[in-house]
């Protein structure tokens, strides 16, 4: 008794596949709020400085980069270089943090995924959005620095919620795809980590877009993180709306990534249970 019975593969092929249907009905907004706050609280409850850590990391990086490029290399004379760097760090930090937590979300919440019939997409998207709390703090920091360096609020600032909305949608789409793949190939998270590290140099964080040789400019244009950095500098430093081509790029990237991510996710999610 109790020995597992092995059946040939063809039994699995089955005749009439049951249609997949969602059993969960409920309050999505309340669920999202709870899951986002859960991730956020768990991350910060055990830190004595709590939310201050969201401020310390970009401040230290900004200081170090300003020192290196202002004093060590000595080439950077721009008085607003700290703001310039911070415009690069905030989108970069959100991207790397949110993509990584999103990628591991399904595995990290295995107990939930195996026991509660809540739509699985919610788990990944909530993990990405839980980084939104840091993002808000860092954007506030960025705006604080912008004002402190004598830059004035402009009408272009209304573009901030638009570009961030598109950017967050792009990261959600990317994370949906990678979190589903990570269930089947656990190496995925290491690929994401390595990619994030390399990305620091591929995104114009401590250098400006204008010094990129023309023949490589196209490569940068298709990098949404670089596009976002550029948009932040357009809006906050130049006080201008981002160029139309950049906005178009962000819209297309967000839509395509979201579409692809959701497709990959829904194709793979019926098999999550037995692979977690």
């Amino acid at each position, binding site marked *: 008794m109790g020995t597992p019975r092995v*059946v040939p593969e063809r*039994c699995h092929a089955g005749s009439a*596949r049951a249609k997949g249907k969602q059993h969960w009905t409920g*309050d999505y907004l309340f669920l999202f709020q709870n899951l986002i706050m859960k991730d956020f609280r768990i991350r910060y409850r055990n830190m004595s400085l709590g939310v201050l850590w969201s401020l310390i990391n970009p401040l230290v990086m900004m200081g170090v980069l300003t020192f290196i490029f202002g004093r060590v290399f000595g080439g950077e004379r721009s008085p607003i270089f700290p703001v310039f760097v911070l415009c690069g760090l905030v989108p970069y930090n959100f991207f790397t943090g949110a993509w990584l937590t999103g990628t591991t979300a399904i595995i990290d919440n295995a107990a939930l995924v*195996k*026991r*509660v019939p809540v739509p699985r997409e919610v788990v990944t998207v909530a993990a990405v959005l839980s980084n939104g709390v840091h993002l808000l703090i860092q954007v506030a920091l960025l705006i604080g620095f912008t004002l402190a360096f004598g830059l004035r609020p402009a009408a272009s600032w209304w573009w901030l919620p638009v570009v961030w909305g598109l950017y967050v949608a792009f990261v959600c789409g990317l994370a949906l795809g990678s979190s589903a793949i990570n269930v*089947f190939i656990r190496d995925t998270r290491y690929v994401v980590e390595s990619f994030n590290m390399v990305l620091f140099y591929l995104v114009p964080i401590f250098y400006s877009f204008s010094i990129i040789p023309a023949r490589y400019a196209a490569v940068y244009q298709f990098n949404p993180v670089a596009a976002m950095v550029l948009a932040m500098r357009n809006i906050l430093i130049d006080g201008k709306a981002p160029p139309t081509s950049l906005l178009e790029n962000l819209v297309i990237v967000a839509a395509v990534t979201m579409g692809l991510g959701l497709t990959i996710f829904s194709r793979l999610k019926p098999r999550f249970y037995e692979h977690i």
Partner: protein
Amino acid sequence: MPAGTLWFDGVTKTFAHHAGQMLLRDRIADLISPSRRGRLEALREVSFELRPGESLGLIGPNGAGKSTLLNLATGLLEPDSGQVEVQGRVAALLDLSAGFHNSLTGAENLRINAALMGLSRRQTAERFEDIVEFSGVREFIHEPLRAYSSGMILRLAFAVAVSADPDVLLIDELIGVGDQAFQDKALEKIRSFQHAGKTVLLASHSSELMMTLCERALWLDHGRVMMSGASPEVLAAYLESTSTTKAVLD
């Protein structure tokens, strides 16, 4: 079909054997020689119907497919073939503490799990007091869960799960829900669900519990239905088969 109906028609569910090896090299190996290891059959051609207000007990040895059946009814799994239909809101008391986190307080965990059960913000606020009262952990409700005993966590989890006012209640082994006093309270709660015309599907190794709660029973072994009918007969046949097995082994 009215809310509270649970319907399985020729349901077969198999699992991959190699689940657990999730590295790139395993995936590449799969591509080169697709899964010749066959699949594990958890359920084979299982059919039954539960109308609103009926209670069915699942009985069988470990690995018989009871949990797979409950997971299919919950919507956590999809059948390979056949159909599963569940009407109305389902509350699954499978692994009660699955959605609970140690470093969050009882109240925070309560809200998260109420949201996971599908309750809205308002419903959660309205039922908060009742849930705390029922769980009996009031003086610890703002303490982190790590200060709780395992019994207290289960009591809170049970209280949240039953607060969702489900049409169908799925239970996997009620044993271990706190002390005797709370078990009695939990049983009473389940009975009140039955009186209110809710559907109950219960998997248990306790024939005593099954006799008190379920008028019908389904005996599973190796994923197949061995017998289905009134609880006393099915239980008697099942118990006899296990004692025969024992006698043979002796």
